[in-house]
């Protein structure tokens, strides 16, 4: 984990949860290229994500590790998969309503349906094209910047809810 920008107290925070270092790297690159104004925090597993959200161990400092305003969550991860993490997040008071995007390579309809029914706000399929990734991150930035929150920017990258199986 390394902060891309110096943190400020007013900055919004996006927590990116993915076990794949390439994806984490690409997102960090994307954020840099997109010139986003939010703080990107990345964790490498579901377990770590929960520790982060609980403020455990090295995540105890909330100044350094603020509670996220938006979470990108991979599905297929060792130890604890994305669905488990998602259920934990939605059962935890501090994160019960935090906007969350499932960010997965999956195009399987069952995954999409389950993601939404477990409480995800968006279901974004990982893009192959870097420019699309940059667009997604810009949309996320736009969402986070809007006051009150505005979903429209991210929705266009999200698989439609209620996808038939």
């Amino acid at each position, binding site marked *: 984990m390394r902060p891309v920008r110096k943190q400020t107290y007013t900055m919004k925070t996006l927590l990116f949860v993915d076990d*794949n270092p*390439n*994806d984490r790297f*690409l997102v960090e*690159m994307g954020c840099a*290229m997109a010139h986003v104004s939010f703080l990107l925090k990345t964790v490498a597993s579901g377990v770590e994500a929960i520790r982060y959200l609980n403020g455990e161990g090295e995540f105890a400092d909330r100044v350094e590790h603020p509670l996220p305003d938006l979470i990108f969550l991979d*599905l*297929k991860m060792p130890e604890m998969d994305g669905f488990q993490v998602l259920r934990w997040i939605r059962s935890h008071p501090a994160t019960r309503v935090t906007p969350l995007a499932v960010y*997965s*390579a*999956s*195009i*399987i*309809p*069952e*995954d999409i349906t389950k993601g939404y029914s477990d409480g995800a706000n968006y279901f974004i399929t*990982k*893009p*192959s*094209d*870097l*420019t699309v*990734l940059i667009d997604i991150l810009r949309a996320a930035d736009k969402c986070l910047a809007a006051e009150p929150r505005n979903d429209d920017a991210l929705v266009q990258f999200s698989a439609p809810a209620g996808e*038939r*199986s």
Partner: protein
Amino acid sequence: MKAGLPFSFSWKWLAQLAGFAGLYLALARFGNVAVVAEGNVPMVWPAAGLAVAGLWWGGYRLAPAIALGGFVFAWLNGVPAPVGAAAAFASMLGPVVVVLLMRRYIDAPRLFDRVGDVFLFFLCAAVAPALVDALGVASLCWGGVGKWDDFHRLWLLSWAGDLMGMLIAAPALLVWTWPDNLRWTPRKRIEAAGGFALLTICSALIFTGKLASIGVGFPFLVLPIVVWIAVRLGQRATVSATLLACAFPVWGTLHGMGPFAELDMPLPVLALFMGVMAMTGLVLAASVTERRQAQSALRQSEERFRLLVESAKGYAIYMLDAEGRIATWSAEAERIKGYRSEEIVGKPFRTFFTPEDAHRGVPDQVLRMAREEGQARYEGWRVRKDGSRFCVEGIITAVRDENGALNGFSKVAHDVTDRKQAEEVLRQNEARFRTLAEGLPQLVWTCLPDGRCDYLSPQWVRYTGVPEEQQLGFGWLAQVDPDDRERAAAAWKGAVETHATLDVEFRIRGADGAHRWFKARAVPLRDSEGHVVKWFGTSTDIDDQKRANELLEAKVQERTAQLQASLSSVEELLYTIAHDLRAPNRHMQSFAQLLLLEHADRLDDKARDYLGRIGAAAARSDELIRDLLEYGRLSHEAVALAPVDLRQAVQAVLRAVAGEIQRRNAHVQFGREWPRVVANERLLEQILTNFVTNALTYAPLDREPEITISAESEGGKAVLRVQDNGIGIPPDQIDRVFEPFIRLPNETHAPGTGMGLAIVKKAAERLNGAVGADSTLGKGSCFWLELQAA
């Protein structure tokens, strides 16, 4: 007509009494004219006959009328009242006693039909007045009307008068009250007229005319004429002739004419003459009647017998003489045995026997047995005239006269060939059933309608090792496995009560102690009225099958589990492909882009080209993985089917590919009919997308693509067609286009994985539909999808 209570009062009775008394008085007065002067005793007292006839018909309640008439008569004759009353009582008592005796001893509605009855009547008419008249004469003498010295003569005269009155008048009156026993033909009438004329002439000549003085023998000339009439002309004529034959001598004698008067014979002689004549007439008439009745009875009996013999269909009834020769024959015998009466009567009885039986002496044995024991029953085969054989069952009975001498034999033979044949068929059926039952591998059994078992095939006995007789009834249940026994018994009870086919499985203990599964089935046999007469059942050994089934079931479960395991591993694989296998491609593509973006200044054109190729290859690889994933998932993902509007699906697809259509400047035309189909919207759109993009892809570059999308429904099916004007498909390839990884060359060099139509085919299968293609090389192709119409 029996009397009721004789003295019950009624006006009708009084009137009858008065009438009868008048009648009695009148006849008494008439009789009195014929009184011989001596002692005032009438010679014939017809009033006594009237009294008897009246009491016989009207009953004792008319008796007072007789007394009344007698009293008035005595009074008219100047007899003192007490004497008259006593005489009147006597004249009443006589007929009453006579009728009493007649009723007691003569048991017949027609008094004079039997000779015995006639004699009984004489006896009654003779005995009773003899006693009663003694009383009457005694009363006359006591009253001074007669003299005691004269008693026996008066008594005799009085008795004779009463007797004659009864003998002559009573039969005449009674006989005329019931129908004559003679059938009056014209000939009989002429004969009667002749008879009576002769009788009148003879009587007139003998008793009143010139002949009267010739001699005493002549009165007997009348007798043969009366006999003639009695024998030939029936009772009425007889009594009438007797009356006539008596009237002349009485009249003649009273007038001093005729032999009785001239020879001055005692009056009883005349009475005797008349009595003999009356008796002769009555006895003869009765005798003739009796004989005629006997003949008639015999005729009737013979007629009845003949009718009996003739109407006994199937029975040959005939007589044999004492030597065993046929004596009589009948129509039915002719029908059964084929011989005509004239052919067979007189022939020996053995003619009917088969040569074998005749040779063994069976006919003689039968006759001997009948002779010795009175009757012989037999059954056997006989031969008809035409040589055919038939089976008879018969009785031969010795007929003997009253002295025990053998007259012959009566024979009753019944043709039982049909029955015999039916029995034979039955026996054969039974044998056939047994053979079948014992030849079957199943255990066979039969039961009575109430469910009791009455037959168990040897297989059953062999299998259980328990004798059949121990298992009949409900004994077989003991061999049924205790765990199944109650269920088996209940099933059997239910079947028996409802007459339904039995179908139940249970275990039966074998002789080796092993319990094997059997399937028992039984059906009821019904008679023509639908009543169950028998149950036929089989028990089939299904133990091996049952065990094999159990084994198979276990195997199926095992395989299913294996299959499910492999299926879930496939799903796991697909999941891995979806998540992990795509990542390297994605990263390759992204990093190639990143390299181009961030380090473009350090790369020459060749390097940039290579990077572009790396990115494109990665994209192709990802596309392939996505198609494979889709293809794999189509095989086992759940597909929900629902009615779908085909037009909307087509519109949605065209919207999605609108850019490409525009880019290629393609023209799209539509059909008119848009049936609703049973499908899944996503799969349908996937198929349509494939069809449309193929039509665009395989269009030659030098002409604008023309696509026609149409649909039609027929017989519950709907067919959607996408026709293009593309390059077409070579005929040898057309069957292969729906196979995976088959790609045909095209001029646009559009990217593709070769999975498109394979996915289409799979999707169509999941929609319970079918896909196909028709194509003309160089002209275009038509891809069609057939679905169930909604």
